[in-house]
């Protein structure tokens, strides 16, 4: 439909429209990618500010800065905003920018839906954030919104929360559908499935996961809505429902969701390590199969989040082994990254630094995940700071480092200018030190028994909490440097060549930098 009409227009090679309407009405995948990335950056800073509030309160034992009620709202919104507003839109933005260029397509398959899926997102987060100013405050039940905390005991603003989750879900589903249709149907002749760049592969799998689980999340919040307002009893024991059922439905969505937040990172890191090792990626097809098996396994491990609800032994053992099985394909990937670097002529530009840090630190997060998978040990670790340390290790130096690596790696292609390498390296080292100082001590206090989600703690946890807070402030404020570097690069800087990086391979590097507004209006020739 619209793609055909646009192809016709492309013959004139018109540039973008001028003014604000360019961004409001745009159907260009590069514009929409940029919108997604800036939106995600804004959410990253807002969610980060909330993390600063949390760490400031935890700097010392006792209550100093905020009320416990507000603290609960902060941890809830921090989680929701970072997941649904930070990481996921950033990956969708990268997919928008890169997938069409990597497969030699002129644009996404459904450009108008693409516009819609972005522009409903700001409204979702406006609704969510506005709940901070409502009577009773913002949602305060944690990002996992377990019933009955989020139903019977929820503040009135929970209805707005439900509405905003519906919008976020709709946005993600539309984005995912767009990616699948694009990848399955718009590859340039010669780009067969097993020749696709790994980032495209990782997004194809991620998109299928999104389409499978986001509707289940929508179902879960719809049930909450019905319990709260329409007198049903899905999760209310008095009416014959079961609160544990909520946890099953939630984690049926929630576990694939954590792979939604890491698979695209696998794709990004594979490209960067390949480029800066100046070698061919080791084990391409095993990378694809590893991602596929991780995605499939993600549907049968959800109950490892709820070992302590009182499951029978057989179920606990099943979910324990299924979870540990995921370490096998993940191990294959880590092995392949290391093998790619082995005897490569490596240089450590900023993207490579972030990518190597990703491999090391993500592996630490994976290892603590394995510890949590052990049922008897999990009874000790459950809901402690050890869990907080675990998922922050896989999400911050995992997902977020990969996004930062991707920005440094592809920004010369996006805006035609090289970023300031010296500042980029400074940003890396500040973030690297900050992240580890923040989250590594949380392993210790978690193992020592400090529970998560409390605004106060026993005195014996004071020292490591202070260290953790110092690290958090360092990491948090370093991101302002990141913002500065990005703005500086957009404004100007050394001009980038088309290929940008000596070892860069792939279709996106064959076009000029900055990438023209319309690329591959005629399919490229693949040898």
């Amino acid at each position, binding site marked *: 439909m619209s793609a055909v009409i646009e192809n016709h227009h492309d013959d004139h090679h018109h540039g973008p429209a001028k003014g604000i309407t360019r961004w409001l009405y745009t159907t260009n995948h590069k514009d929409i990618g940029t919108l997604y990335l800036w939106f995600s950056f804004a959410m990253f800073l807002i969610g980060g500010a909330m993390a600063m509030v949390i760490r400031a309160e935890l700097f010392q034992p006792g209550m100093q800065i905020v009320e416990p009620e507000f603290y609960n709202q902060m941890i809830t919104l921090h989680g929701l905003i970072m997941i649904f507003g930070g990481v996921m839109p950033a990956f969708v933005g990268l997919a928008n920018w890169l997938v069409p260029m990597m497969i030699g397509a002129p644009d996404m398959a459904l450009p108008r839906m693409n516009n819609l899926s972005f522009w409903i997102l700001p409204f979702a987060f406006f609704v969510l954030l506005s709940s901070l100013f409502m009577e009773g405050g913002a949602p305060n039940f944690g990002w996992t919104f377990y019933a009955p905390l989020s139903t019977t005991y929820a503040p009135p603003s929970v209805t707005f929360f439900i509405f905003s989750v519906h919008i976020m879900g709709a946005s993600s589903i539309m984005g995912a559908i767009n990616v699948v249709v694009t990848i399955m149907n718009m590859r340039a002749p010669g780009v067969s499935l097993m020749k696709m760049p790994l980032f495209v592969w990782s997004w194809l799998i991620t998109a299928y996961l999104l389409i499978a689980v986001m509707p289940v999340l929508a179902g879960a919040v719809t049930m909450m809505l019905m319990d709260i307002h329409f007198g049903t009893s899905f999760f209310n024991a*008095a009416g*014959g429902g079961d609160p544990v059922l909520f946890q099953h*439905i939630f984690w*049926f969505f929630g576990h694939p969701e954590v792979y939604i937040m890491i698979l695209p990172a696998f794709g990004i890191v594979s490209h960067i390590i390949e480029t800066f090792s100046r070698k061919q990626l080791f084990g391409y097809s095993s990378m694809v199969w590893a991602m596929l098996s991780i995605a499939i396994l993600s549907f049968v491990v959800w109950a490892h989040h709820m070992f302590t609800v*009182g499951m*029978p032994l057989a179920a606990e053992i099943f979910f324990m082994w299924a979870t540990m099985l995921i370490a096998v394909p993940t191990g294959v990937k880590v092995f392949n990254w290391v093998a790619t670097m082995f005897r490569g002529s490596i240089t450590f530009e900023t993207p490579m630094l972030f990518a190597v840090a990703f491999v090391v630190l993500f592996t630490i997060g994976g290892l603590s995940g394995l510890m949590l998978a052990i049922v008897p040990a999990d009874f000790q670790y459950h809901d402690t700071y050890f869990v907080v340390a675990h998922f922050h290790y896989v999400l911050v130096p995992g997902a977020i480092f990969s996004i930062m690596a991707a920005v440094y790696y592809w920004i010369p292609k996006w805006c035609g200018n090289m970023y300031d390498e010296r500042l980029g390296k400074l940003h890396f080292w500040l973030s690297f030190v900050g992240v580890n100082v923040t989250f590594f001590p949380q392993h210790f206090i978690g193992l020592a028994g400090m529970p998560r989600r409390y605004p106060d703690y026993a005195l014996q946890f004071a020292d490591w909490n202070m260290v953790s807070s110092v690290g958090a402030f360092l990491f948090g404020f370093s991101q302002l440097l990141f913002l500065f570097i990005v703005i500086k690069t957009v404004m100007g800087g050394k001009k980038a060549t088309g290929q940008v990086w000596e070892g860069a391979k792939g279709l996106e590097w064959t076009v000029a930098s900055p990438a023209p507004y319309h690329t591959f209006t005629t399919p490229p020739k693949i040898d």
Partner: protein
Amino acid sequence: MNKGAKETLTKLIIAVPLMFAFGFALVPLYDVFCQVTGLNGKVFQSEHSDELVREDGRQLSLQFISTNNENMPWTFEPSEQVMDIQTGKYHTATFYVKNTTNKTMTAQAVPSVAPSNAAEHLKKLECFCFEQQELKPGEEALLPVKLLVSDDLPSNIKNIILSYTIFDITEYEDDQTLAHHQMEME
């Protein structure tokens, strides 16, 4: 858009409501799964059966726990804390309940069995938890539960705990909650 793209799009658009429906289908699936396996410790009504009755049953102790859900002011406690029972024999236990408020209220008790793998061997012929209790101000009652523990209970279980949580459901529409409970019992 080419034909292939339309086809992919159609398939994916169909997948979305299907997965939405699957989320809701998890609710009855969960109930059926728990009923078949007894995993969540819920006990459902069973018919009287002579096959289960036997004279040479094992000795067990059956312990009762009563809990008031938040905002439930009634007095609710088992008449006996512990009962010595035999497998393969019907026993009746009672719970004392009193409406301590000055308004008529309706209550619903929700049972749970520990250890959970004992649940499927616990057969309830009658239970107050299968219906709702409406008590006038100050009214009191003895609520019976008639049950049998079948002899194929795993031999390592020497002690079963039957707990009830009582909920205030005065404000619920009665037919709705009843319907839900009846559905579960079938």
